[in-house]
């Protein structure tokens, strides 16, 4: 990968990587730092990395940086605690808000695989390669994540009867 290809990668993937990181961390400054670090790592190894693999490499680096950052921040998985205190009294008017809140409560692994799947359209194999999980783990995480999101939507009163209105 030469300099031009690297700059093209920045142009093409920086937004996607930033969205992926930002949606995971909910921290603009931290997300910016991680994206810059991911691209810095890409640049350090740009001579060894094929252009076709660049996107996967960036997301892999970003994913690992997210994990490291989460560990530093002592982030706890929220899968078990449904944050009932807050959700019980808060009524969302927009389904996107409900979904955002639900995604924020997902465990990091499930959140990451679902984002890679939905935002970037990666296949299970590619997600497994990026996250270092097995294919079965990816499938299980996606299934659990979807189920969790469905339950969260349901708990916030997003029923089929008024779903169209909510949307």
């Amino acid at each position, binding site marked *: 990968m030469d*300099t031009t290809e*690297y*700059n093209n990668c*920045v*142009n093409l993937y*920086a*937004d996607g*990587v*930033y*969205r992926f990181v*930002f*949606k995971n961390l909910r921290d*603009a400054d931290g997300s*910016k730092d991680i*994206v*810059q670090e991911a*691209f*810095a790592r890409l*640049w350090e190894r740009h001579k060894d990395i094929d252009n076709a693999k660049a996107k996967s490499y960036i997301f892999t680096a970003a994913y690992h940086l997210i994990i490291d950052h989460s560990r530093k921040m002592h982030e706890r998985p929220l899968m078990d605690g449904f944050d009932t205190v807050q959700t019980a009294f808060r009524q969302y008017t927009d*389904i*996107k808000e409900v*979904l955002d809140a639900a*995604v924020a409560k997902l465990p990091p692994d499930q959140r990451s695989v*679902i*984002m890679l*799947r*939905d*935002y970037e359209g990666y296949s*299970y194999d590619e997600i497994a390669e990026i996250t270092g999980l097995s*294919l*079965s783990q990816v*499938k*299980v995480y*996606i*299934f*659990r994540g*979807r*189920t969790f*999101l*469905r339950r969260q*939507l*349901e708990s916030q009163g*997003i*029923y*089929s009867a008024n*779903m169209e209105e909510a*949307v």
Partner: protein
Amino acid sequence: MITTDNYEEYFLDYCEGNLDEAKRREVHCFLNAHPEYRAELEDFLGSPVLDEDTDIAVPANLADSLRHTSDYDEPDVPYFDRLAVLNLEHVATPAEQLAYSRMKYESEECDRVAKLYSKTILPAEQIECPDKRRMMVFPIWRRLAPYAAAAAVVGLMVWFSIGNKATVSILPPATPSVAVDNSRPASDGAQASRLPRQGEDGVQAARLPHQEEDEISRQNNVADTKTTVPNKSEDIIDEEVWCDDMVEVPVEIVEVVVADEPSALQDTTSLPIVADEPSAPQVEILPFDDLNDDYDDNNTKDKKHRHRKKFWFACGKALKYVARRFVPNVYFDMDRNADGKITRVAMYAENKVYTVERKEKPQNGAEL
């Protein structure tokens, strides 16, 4: 009866959904007895054997064995949830797609769950990465280009500033380049300093040849000066850049002769002014155009008033220019008497000539 010899036929029928409930149960029993064939059936299916078959009265031990073969296995999740996720992820087999559609059609609850699952797909959201350009890599000349441009601008500003000072210091010398009539005494009083009106006594009715040359020279000089004197900023003006052809405002009586244009000098009115008169520096500067239409030239009073206003205008403007000591595109010319005192100053500005003549204070004051 399914055996190790004919199991492939059963597997194919199983995949195509041609087996009835009893036959499917036989397949499951066979798999329980021969788990080594499970991989083969999964290859036929293209996906792991799901525990949908446990719903159709599969023996408990077989159901448990099948339940844990699925990647989507979740003991607490209903069967339809698995079908919904598989369909949502577009990884469902035809049989699963059919079962999903059938259940969704037959059950309102399944339909509601299916709609909820469809909402779990994260919507496309455009979030722009800030400082994207900072992550790019540019050649060194491109990275330094902004700094080079800034340095060039600063350099130009410094050069321009220094260049202006140098220009000021090489302004034309005090020697008047315009021919002036130095023979006229400086202390002749108002009558003497007044320029003769055209046709007044026949002297100036026709211009003398050398006067025409002088006029041309004066106009050329004005033009030349405008091109050589650069714009100035007041901040760079100090005593060191004082030029010999600039004058101070004398605190004594001066006389201002004003003309709309150099060629009309003879058609002007000269009026005295006391420079330290309080109202003099505060003269309102009005454009000439504003003065031309409001007065009747046939009315002597109006004409006098008009000339007075013109005079005040010129005087105020002259004083302003002189007080500022230096203005763009202005050139001063002057006469001195034998004592070296400035007796007359001509100022060329904005295509007009303003002449200020020093006079001795008249005994009875100035008549306006």
